[in-house]
């Protein structure tokens, strides 16, 4: 019998990022928003990069965005991704502003059109972890 596949890297869930990953488990995409000045950003930060306030929340976003770029990995930097080769990573600009790297949900398009509208989809890995992915909007 084959050895079990090594596990893929998991997000580092800490006091700053916990709200994001809890929202993902409920199928909600969110970005960090400063309660004082309204600055929105991702990944989360311990203080607001604009006004340095410590009062920030994970605010749900529409899940809509634009495909900024994408690449196709032909090298496995982790053994756990070897079976996926070649695999795509997409870079999305959410309509609320922040950038997110992710993968395409489901079957990845061959040559995804840069500038295309995309929307979030959620990929449940296990009970603890759901990853936000994106599909080209139809």
């Amino acid at each position: 019998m084959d050895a079990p596949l090594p596990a893929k890297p998991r997000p580092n869930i800490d006091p700053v990022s916990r709200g994001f990953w809890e929202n993902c488990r409920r199928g909600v995409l969110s970005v960090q928003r400063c309660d004082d000045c309204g600055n929105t950003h991702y990944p989360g930060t311990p203080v607001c990069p604009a006004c340095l306030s410590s009062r920030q929340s994970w605010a749900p976003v529409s899940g809509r965005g634009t495909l900024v770029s994408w690449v196709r990995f032909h090298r496995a930097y982790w053994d756990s991704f070897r079976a996926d080769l070649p695999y795509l990573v997409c870079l999305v600009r959410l309509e609320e502003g922040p950038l997110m790297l992710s993968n395409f949900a489901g079957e990845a398009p061959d040559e995804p059109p840069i500038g295309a509208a995309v929307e979030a989809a959620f990929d449940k890995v296990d009970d603890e972890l759901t990853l936000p992915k994106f599909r080209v909007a139809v």
Partner: protein
Amino acid sequence: MSDYTHLKDCIAVVGVGNTAYGNFPDRDDYGLGAEAFRNALADCGLEKNKVDGLLVCRIPYYARMGEILGLSPRWTVPLPPHGRMSAMGIIEAAAALEAGLCDYAALIYANIGRSRRVNYGGEESPGVWDPFGFTSPGAAHALMFQQHRAKYGTTTRQLAEVSVAFRHHACLNPDAVMKQPISIDDHEAARPIVEPLRLLDYCLINDGAVCIILTTKERARDLKKRPIMISGIGAREAFETASIANYDPECWYHQARDVGRQVYGMAGVGPSDVDTLMCYDNFSPTVLFSLEGLGFCERGEAGGFVEGGALKVGGRLPTNTDGGHLSNSYMQGWALNVEAVRQLRGECGARQVEGAEVAQFCAITPCSRSIIYTRG
């Protein structure tokens, strides 16, 4: 902004040295650094004990380096093993020399990444995007080139011109790691790593060390070689997308523009006066971004600019005449600064740019820097 331009032509590079480049499993960072230091001292004829400033980069422990070299400096700076540090370190040392914090500064860089099997991705450099399989600086450059391609129609055959020109130079450089010429077709046929980039778009990973010795213009006169002056410097960071390491949504265009304004303004020259460019090339696309941001061509036109061997010695802008990181040695910018000095001294043999008087180093990265060197 306070004015620093009085530093123009105040500080000189007086000594440069390097080791052989390759795979040296039986050596370590300190031994390589010491050899480069010894070579740089011999290059300028400076007595070792005159060195009272020490800047180290990618050396595990600065104090151990000082112990090995028998130095008791009054100015010491350790820098992390990031590629963008070379001109940052040279500028810091120039400011320290001008302020009188030291009289002679030795800047030592060593890299033992080849024999220690450094990967630059995966578990070595954990990041927030790991669950999606995104890692490595090369992937960030692939993202940026993909955008450049979509927006401006830049082709991978144009990108290949960068790798082909630098390999040509490496074949003229006895120190260089890579010795086989390559063609545009070789570039196109190389195995993909993170598409759209292929193996020949990636820098080497090799062992080696470099040392640069700086002092003031006045002290430089007493040393062996013609001093090479720091005539211009420019600097601007881009930290806003640091979580996507080595990525900028505008390919650092705005930072490079700012750096260009500073460096050319201080040196009193423009891109058309640059006889040879030493351009940080961890991945080939950054050369295109650098050419555009510094104003060697218009934005979006670097693909056309580099066509037809423009970056080769004898071309319109001889660039990375030692072969760069792609084909000479992955000395993270330090060897490119040495090459600028050697070009202005006329020491480059088969790869010499005839009559070179103005040499520019640039690293267009999250910490963009440029230095213009001229003959003293």
